[in-house]
C-alpha cells in the first residue's frame, strides 16, 4: 500500500440558507483555500473527485457546472460520486493506490435550502416499496429511534445528552451552524416534534461544502509539516430494505471498522450521526473505549450539509492531527438513511 495523507482541509461556514450564492459561488472560495494552504494550483493535482447530488441541485449533471469552481482548462482528470464526499475521497485514495496519481483534490457540497429536504430525501429510497409512500426523512429516522428505545438500547435521556454534548462542543467550531444547547432537562421538557423525536434530536438543514487535498509519500511531506496519514479506510453497506434490517445495530459500521483497522487507542473520533440516537450505534459499531473524545466539532448535529458532512468528519480529525493537537483519530461517514452505508477511516500523525 502507498502511504497517502490528507494535507489540507477547508470548509465553509455552514448556514441554513446561502440564498445569495449558487453552488459554484458557494464552493469556489473553499476550493481556493484548500489549494492555497499547500501553495498548489489545480495543475499540481493529478486527480480531482467531487461528491454532490442532482436531487438537491434540482439539475441533471449539476457537478459539471461546479467544475467551473475548480478550473477545468487545460483539461483535468476528474470524477464524481453521487454520494457524500467521503466516498469521493475513497475513490481518490484508490486512484493514488493504483499509481495513476500522486496527488488528488476532493470536494463536496450541497445547498439543501432551495427544496424541502425531508421530502427530497425520500427519493433515495427504493422506487417500488418505499419511494411511492414519500416517507419524510425525520419520520423515517424515528423508526430507528423507536426501535432502539423499545429495545432499551438507548433512552430519551441519553439522546438529549448527545444533543447537548455535541452542540456545546460546537461553541469551539467556527464553521458550526447550531451552537450551544439548553440543559438536558430543558431539552427533555420540550414537546415531541415527530414522536419519538424532539427537535433537538434532529440535524439542522445546512448549505455548505468542504475541500481536501490528498498526497502520497514525499509529496505529502513537502506539502504539510504534519500530514494526516490514512492508515486504513473501508466502507460497507446494509440491506436497502429497511424492514429486513435489525435497526438496533449497525453491522456495516462494525465490518468497516474492523477492515479499516480500528484497534488500540484513539485520541479523537468524529462520527457522522445526523440524529441523536445514531451516535450510539456508530460508537458501538466502532467499538471505541470511553476515553476517546467524540465529536469535538459538534458533528452533524451542529452542521449537516448533505454530501459534505461525512467528508467533514475526516477533515476534522485530519485538521487536529495536522495542527499537532492529537496523534491518532478515527473518522466515520454515513450515506443513505438510518446508517445504511458506512465508511470508516483511521488517521494518524508521524512519519
Amino acid at each position, binding site marked *: 500500500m502507498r502511504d497517502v495523507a490528507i494535507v489540507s482541509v477547508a470548509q465553509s461556514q455552514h448556514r441554513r440558507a446561502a440564498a445569495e450564492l449558487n453552488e459554484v459561488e458557494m464552493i469556489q472560495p473553499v476550493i481556493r483555500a484548500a489549494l492555497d*494552504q499547500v501553495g498548489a494550483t489545480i495543475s499540481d493535482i493529478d486527480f480531482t473527485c467531487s461528491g454532490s447530488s442532482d436531487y438537491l441541485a434540482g439539475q441533471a449533471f449539476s457537478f459539471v457546472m461546479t467544475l467551473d469552481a475548480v478550473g477545468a482548462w487545460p483539461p483535468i482528470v476528474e470524477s464524481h460520486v453521487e454520494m457524500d464526499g467521503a466516498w469521493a475521497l475513497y475513490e481518490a485514495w484508490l486512484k493514488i493506490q493504483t499509481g495513476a496519481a500522486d496527488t488528488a483534490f476532493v470536494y463536496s457540497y450541497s445547498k439543501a435550502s432551495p427544496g424541502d429536504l425531508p421530502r427530497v430525501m425520500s427519493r433515495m429510497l427504493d422506487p417500488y416499496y418505499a419511494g411511492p409512500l414519500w416517507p419524510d426523512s*425525520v419520520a423515517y429516522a424515528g423508526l430507528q429511534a423507536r426501535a432502539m428505545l423499545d429495545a432499551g438500547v438507548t433512552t430519551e435521556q441519553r439522546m438529549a445528552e448527545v444533543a447537548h454534548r455535541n452542540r456545546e462542543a460546537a461553541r469551539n467550531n467556527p464553521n458550526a451552524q447550531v451552537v450551544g444547547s439548553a440543559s438536558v432537562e430543558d431539552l427533555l421538557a420540550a414537546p415531541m416534534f415527530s414522536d419519538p423525536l424532539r427537535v433537538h434530536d434532529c440535524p439542522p438543514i445546512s448549505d455548505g461544502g468542504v475541500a481536501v487535498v490528498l498526497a502520497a509519500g514525499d509529496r505529502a511531506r513537502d506539502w504539510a509539516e504534519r500530514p494526516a496519514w490514512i492508515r486504513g479506510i473501508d466502507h460497507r453497506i446494509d440491506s436497502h430494505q429497511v424492514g429486513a434490517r435489525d435497526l438496533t445495530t449497525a453491522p456495516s459500521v462494525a465490518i468497516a471498522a474492523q477492515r479499516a483497522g480500528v484497534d488500540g487507542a484513539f485520541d479523537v473520533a468524529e462520527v457522522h450521526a445526523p440524529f441523536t440516537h445514531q451516535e450510539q450505534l456508530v460508537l458501538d459499531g466502532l467499538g471505541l473505549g470511553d476515553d476517546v473524545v467524540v465529536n469535538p466539532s459538534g458533528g452533524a448535529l451542529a452542521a449537516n450539509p448533505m454530501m459534505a458532512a461525512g467528508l467533514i468528519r475526516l477533515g476534522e480529525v485530519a485538521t487536529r492531527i495536522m495542527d499537532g493537537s492529537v496523534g491518532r483519530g478515527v473518522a466515520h461517514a454515513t450515506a443513505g438513511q438510518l446508517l445504511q452505508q458506512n465508511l470508516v477511516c483511521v488517521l494518524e500523525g508521524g512519519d
Partner: protein
Amino acid sequence: MGVTVTVDDSTGGEGLLRAPLVIEYPFNRTTGPVVGAFVSALRDRRVLGIRAADGRVVCPPVEYDPQTGAPLEEMVEVAATGTVTTWSWVPEAREGQPLQTPHALALVQLDGADTSVLHVVDAPGPEALSTGARVRIRWAAEPTGAITDIECFELDGGAS
C-alpha cells in the same frame, strides 16, 4: 491545516430574485418476476412474501437471498393483518404520502412473514398507537398494482 471560509452574508437573502422550479420524472418501471408478482397480487388484494434460504419469509419479497445472495423463487402468501414493530408520528402530512391527515409511519410484520413492510397507519394520535399494536390492511378502492394499493393500515379493533 483547516481554515474557515466566510462569505459575505450581508444581503441576508433580501431583495434576491426567486423563481419556482418543479421537477418531475414520470417513469414506467419494469418490475421483474419478484416485485412484479408482489404488486400484481396487491391488485388482487393479496400479499406475497418470498421464502429465503434459511426458511424465513421476507415480505415485501426480495429477488436475492439476504444472507447468501442466491436467487429466490418460492412466493408465499401472508396475511392482511400484522403487528407494528416500530413507528413514528407524522404530525403534518406531505404531498404524496398515502394519508393526508396526521398519521404514523410504521414497519408492520404481517402474519406469516419474518420481516416488516414500510407503510402508514391511520390513527387519531400518537397516544393511540404503540409498538406491538395489531393492524390490518385498508385496501385502496381501485387497486393498480402498486404498494399504494395498500391505502394504509388501520388499528385492528377499529380504534381509528
